[in-house]
């Protein structure tokens, strides 16, 4: 929404079209939400602390490895991760920032602290996405092997840092996708797969 407001403020017609395109991309991010819905169906709760507590035990109780509840948990996690990348305009999906390199994007008019605040917001968004992914899928603060190193906030930090490392790793590996490529990816692959995932989880919950 913030992006839409900025585009409007700048008041240039081409930028408004760009905002619409960005909006469409954002709509394509619903599959991230669908993935979370799938998980909530399994956990029967939306309370994040409870979700972490449910992953107590050992490594294979983390939701990403609970293939008894839903064999596609790994895919779920991947889809969630890709969506958080796309949501934060990060790594291969940073079309908005790219356009500022061509002096047409929404970053251009801002400089100094305004720009700094934008970037801090982007990084904070990234951290939030990583934190959410570790809470939902990777077991939050649970340790994979209780006796060796006990549970605690350090595990949470370690997992968040690991996910952020993966985000950086992806950034330095892949070239930027085109808008067509991104929309193609989200609407033709991610959404059908996440909807299938949702149906599969529902089926498994009913049958078992």
């Amino acid at each position, binding site marked *: 929404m913030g992006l839409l407001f900025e585009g409007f403020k700048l008041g240039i017609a081409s930028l408004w079209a760009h905002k619409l395109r960005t909006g469409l991309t954002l709509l394509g991010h619903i599959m991230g939400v669908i993935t979370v819905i799938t998980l909530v169906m399994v956990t029967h709760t939306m309370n994040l602390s409870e979700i972490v507590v449910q992953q107590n035990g050992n490594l294979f109780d983390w939701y990403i490895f609970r293939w008894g509840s839903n064999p596609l948990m790994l895919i779920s996690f991947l889809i969630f991760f890709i969506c958080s990348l796309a949501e934060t305009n990060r790594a291969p999906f940073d079309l908005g920032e790219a356009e500022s390199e061509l002096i047409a994007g929404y970053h251009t008019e801002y400089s100094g602290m305004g720009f700094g605040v934008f970037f801090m917001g982007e990084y904070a968004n990234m951290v939030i996405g990583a934190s959410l992914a570790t809470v939902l899928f990777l077991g939050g603060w649970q340790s994979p092997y209780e006796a060796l190193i006990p549970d605690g906030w350090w595990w949470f930090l370690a997992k968040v840092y690991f996910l952020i490392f993966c985000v950086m*790793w*992806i950034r*330095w*590996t*892949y070239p930027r996708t085109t808008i067509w490529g991104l929309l193609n990816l989200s609407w033709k*692959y991610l959404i059908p797969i996440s909807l299938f995932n949702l149906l599969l989880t529902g089926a498994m919950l009913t049958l078992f």
Partner: protein
Amino acid sequence: MSGYFSELFGGTWSLLVGLGITFRYMLKPVVTVQYPRQSLTMTPRFRGHIELIANEETGAPNCVVCGMCQKSCPSNCISLAGEKSETGKGKVLTKYILNFTTCSLCGMCVESCKFNAITFSKEYNLAGPRKEAYIFDLKKRLEERRG
């Protein structure tokens, strides 16, 4: 529809291969040389401007002022002069001026010298404030090098 899954799995596999490549690069040692604080050594055949070779014991240049380098230089960079030696045998070098502004590093001078008097130096980071800084007095340079 036919290519859907093959594209999906093939694409995912290629993405993972890419990640593996960058991960391996991350673990390799850094090859950046922090230039002014560290410097590279040039390879043995590297051609910097020519320099005089001195006799090991006496410290005098091997040059006998035959003038072959001056004659063979296609750009007329070299000018040298000598005087008759005290022992009466041959000449002794008094001045050897290299005009590096016109030198093309062709190596005809080094090739034509039969007395092992000149060779290529390994100097690569020359910088000077004016053109005259590149008219090298090779005899003076030899004395500075010998210390």
